[in-house]
């Protein structure tokens, strides 16, 4: 493909047209602390052999979770990825294709996306799922915007127990003036009070709230009361947006069955490696009544003139390539390859495989929690129900504990404070510094967990 750069004159003309003096003016929304204020320090060219050797050296300097016993989670999990996932992804028809606008030549890609959408609907208990979003955090923010369109309101209430990084993403969208956000923190039991007359009911207030956003499990690992959340939200004329872990939906009740109107989440647990935090994908599903307000691409099944089954992009009038100024979102793309990984994963493990994997994670997490409490080094800050992730308070210095366990080959959870600002969580700041979130996947063995507990005891 030829690249035709603009001339200096053309660049100047474009800057004048949008009212900027310099290119830098276009980046003023990027926080100063993350801008590179010096030229890129890129060394000169290398031959292929030297380059491979250099890259190998860089890679070897890492300690990947795959080489350790990992109890780290907090949004990114060390699940087993069946080998068939990579084999399907590496097919060039999938690997190199760009967005499938033209159905005549893209039936395979479109069918794969359609299958993916159908599986997300089955998992979430929703009627319609889109072709995927960038990640769980943007899916949550897009759900907030969608709820504002549906209800014609412009304020959302978010559980303070949603992952702090997702809160940041939500606030970034809010800064653009799209909607206002208020947070409702958790009680001493590590969950938000969803009962009538509780903190959520108070936060939903006087009928101007478009949606209540909640994540279950929350960032602490605790399961929130979605049925109560749905009742409170609907009482206030708001939608319930529930974020879920798709792998755990193998055993947990579908959020749709609990009353959620939009279900979103991070797809990484479904067959995508941790890869230093990305890329993965976000999933997004809703009820049919609201589908015309949904963002993102959507593949539908239809028949062609001869009556053959065919797959096409559908309801495209929601999207900005049809109607820029009226589009439901400026996201007109998807994470097709990562979504394909998830669809392949789900096909590989099947309905029962997903349930048994989820059950294994949950059972092992409960085992590890008991073992860690028995060491006497940890205490339980609450006794809320949880799935494959839980939070404990460490009695000593958290970073020293993690350092020494790292030397012994263990990733000893994620300190809650590392997940971001805890201001909205409602957790006692005096307690927050001691909290560590542990995740247990099906990959962990009893021997690994017993050894880990012994190492903790010996600290």
């Amino acid at each position: 493909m030829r690249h035709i750069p603009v001339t200096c004159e053309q660049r100047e003309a474009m800057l004048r047209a949008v009212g900027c003096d310099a290119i830098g003016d276009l980046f003023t929304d990027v926080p100063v602390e993350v801008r590179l204020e010096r030229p890129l320090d890129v060394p000169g060219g290398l031959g292929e052999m030297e380059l491979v050797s250099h890259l190998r050296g860089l890679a070897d300097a890492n300690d990947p979770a795959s080489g350790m016993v990992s109890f780290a989670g907090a949004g990114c999990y060390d699940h087993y990825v069946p080998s068939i996932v990579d084999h399907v992804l590496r097919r060039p028809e999938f690997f190199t294709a760009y967005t499938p606008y033209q159905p005549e030549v893209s039936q395979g890609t479109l069918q794969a996306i359609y299958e993916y959408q159908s599986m997300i609907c089955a998992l979430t208990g929703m009627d319609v799922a889109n072709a995927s979003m960038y990640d769980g955090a943007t899916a949550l923010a897009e759900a907030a915007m969608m709820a504002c369109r549906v209800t014609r309101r412009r304020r959302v209430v978010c559980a303070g127990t949603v992952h702090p990084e997702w809160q940041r993403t939500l606030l970034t969208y809010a800064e653009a003036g799209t909607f206002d956000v208020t947070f409702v923190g958790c009680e001493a039991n590590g969950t938000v009070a969803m009962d009538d007359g509780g903190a959520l009911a108070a936060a939903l207030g006087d009928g101007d709230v478009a949606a209540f956003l909640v994540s279950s499990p929350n960032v602490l690992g605790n399961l929130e009361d979605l049925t109560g959340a749905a009742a409170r939200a609907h009482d206030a004329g708001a939608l319930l947006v529930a974020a879920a872990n798709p792998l755990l939906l193998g055993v947990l009740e579908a959020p749709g069955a609990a009353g959620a109107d939009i279900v979103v989440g991070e797809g990484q647990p479904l067959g995508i490696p941790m890869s230093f935090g990305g890329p993965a994908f976000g999933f997004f599903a809703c009820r049919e009544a609201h589908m015309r307000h949904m963002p993102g691409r959507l593949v539908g099944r239809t028949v062609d003139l001869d009556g053959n089954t065919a797959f096409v992009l559908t309801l495209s009038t929601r999207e900005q390539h049809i109607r820029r100024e009226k589009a439901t979102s400026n996201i007109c793309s998807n994470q097709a390859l990562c979504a394909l990984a998830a669809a392949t994963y789900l096909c590989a493990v099947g309905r029962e495989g997903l349930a048994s994997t989820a059950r294994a994670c949950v059972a092992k997490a409960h085992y590890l929690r008991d073992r860690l409490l028995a060491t006497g080094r940890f205490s339980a800050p609450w006794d809320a129900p949880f799935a494959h992730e839980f939070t404990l308070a460490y009695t000593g210095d958290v970073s020293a504990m993690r350092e020494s366990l790292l030397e012994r080959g263990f990733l000893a959870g994620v300190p809650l404070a590392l997940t971001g600002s805890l201001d909205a969580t409602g957790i006692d700041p005096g307690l927050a510094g001691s909290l560590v979130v542990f995740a247990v996947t099906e990959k962990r063995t009893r021997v690994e967990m017993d050894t880990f507990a012994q190492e903790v005891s010996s600290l």
Partner: protein
Amino acid sequence: MYPSDLKYDKEHEWVRLEGDIAIIGISHFAQNQLGEVVYVDLPSEGDSVNAGEAFGEIESVKSVSELYSPADGEIVKVNASLSDAPEVVNEDPYGEGWMIQVKLADPSQIDGLLSAEEYEAFVSEEA
């Protein structure tokens, strides 16, 4: 094709005046230009509308267009059956295909709209 008891505007809506209530839909010309209508997005009862401003959207297999109100007022009724059967807009644009009923702030606004004859002349220029 353009009933003489109706008034029309240049955005191709028609108005039937019944007392101070205006029943509003889109013309035969509009439905024919749009082609097969697949979705009509209408406002809620109680919403107010202003002359010349969009009150909804109509989507066909070919395009999406805004629906414009020919007058000011408050919506007292919405044709909810269009959500299940949008094709009625094609089949019966002046009858079952009506979209909203508006309690007019000033019924004399309707006098300023086009007559059937004037509208027909207008669309023959457009076509």
